[in-house]
């Protein structure tokens, strides 16, 4: 969900940048070399991916079209009486930046909505995963309880401290990855609990 947080936070810097280069001071500022325009993924194409994305892409196309018109109008006024070719060219570049100002945010919206649509459409699969993971956890917890009880019985019978067997073996325990959990989860679909061998596998 980081993208969502990011796009709510990433606000006013651009507007400030646009203002700072307002046409009152066009000549005083040195031209910033523009970074070469990276090819952008086209968020407009995402409208074909789903109902929510289609609504969003249409709404965003309206906003970006409006911004483009405003940038055109700005350029017309800003350059109408310009007599310095360098300043003229700078303002042409600036109008392009202005017209593209929402492109990154539109891409972020599309990314965020893709994730959300995937979550919505996966509700049944997520519920199944939850049930399988819960069954796996319960089996592992039940097995652990019995193994620990047996460790305690055997340690007591041998006059050992109950902690001793754990300390002796701690270094041989692998760390468990979520990938291993995911591999075991479907096995719980059988009504029969997994043997210890498989739980450990």
């Amino acid at each position, binding site marked *: 969900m980081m993208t969502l947080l990011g796009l709510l936070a990433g606000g006013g810097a651009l507007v400030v940048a646009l203002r700072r280069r307002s046409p009152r001071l066009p000549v005083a500022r040195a031209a910033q070399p523009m970074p070469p325009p990276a090819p952008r993924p086209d968020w407009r194409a995402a409208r074909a991916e789903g109902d929510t994305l289609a609504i969003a892409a249409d709404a965003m196309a309206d906003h970006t079209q409006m911004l483009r018109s405003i940038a*055109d109008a700005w350029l017309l006024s800003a350059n109408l009486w310009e007599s310095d070719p360098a300043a003229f060219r700078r*303002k042409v570049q600036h109008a392009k930046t202005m017209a593209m100002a929402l492109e990154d945010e539109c891409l972020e919206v599309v990314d965020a909505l893709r994730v959300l649509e995937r979550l*919505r459409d996966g509700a049944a699969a997520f*519920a199944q*995963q939850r049930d399988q993971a819960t069954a796996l*956890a319960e*089996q592992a917890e039940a097995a652990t309880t019995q193994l620990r009880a047996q460790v305690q019985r*055997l340690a007591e019978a041998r006059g050992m401290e109950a902690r001793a067997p754990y300390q002796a073996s701690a270094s041989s325990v692998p760390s468990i990855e979520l990938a291993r959990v995911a591999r075991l989860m479907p096995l719980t679909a059988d009504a029969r609990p997994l*043997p210890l061998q498989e739980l450990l596998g």
Partner: protein
Amino acid sequence: MNQDFARYTEKDILAHCRSNARLLASNPILHQTYQREAYARAERKLREADEEIRVFRAWRTSFVGPRRDAWGHFDEASRQAQERARRALMHLHFAWAALATLLTDEEQATWLERDFHRE
């Protein structure tokens, strides 16, 4: 006259600027007046651009926010259950490693075939 400045060629730009420079030289006060009016229009356009960006962000909040609230946590229960299973398996490995040190090979084999119901 074509005034799509974004499409001006280098030749167009030079001609445009030369013409304006002539007016600036011959009638600076008139040029200044025109320039001031044009810049005032440009300023208004900048404010419109700000406003359009603000409207876009308001739309985004109203569009994405409710959907995130509705769908954003659909995988939460599954992720929590998987994390619980991961921890449970780790504890099981710890317990088995400890128990194995106390068992013969035959006893270990017997244990490995057992399964466990929660009572």
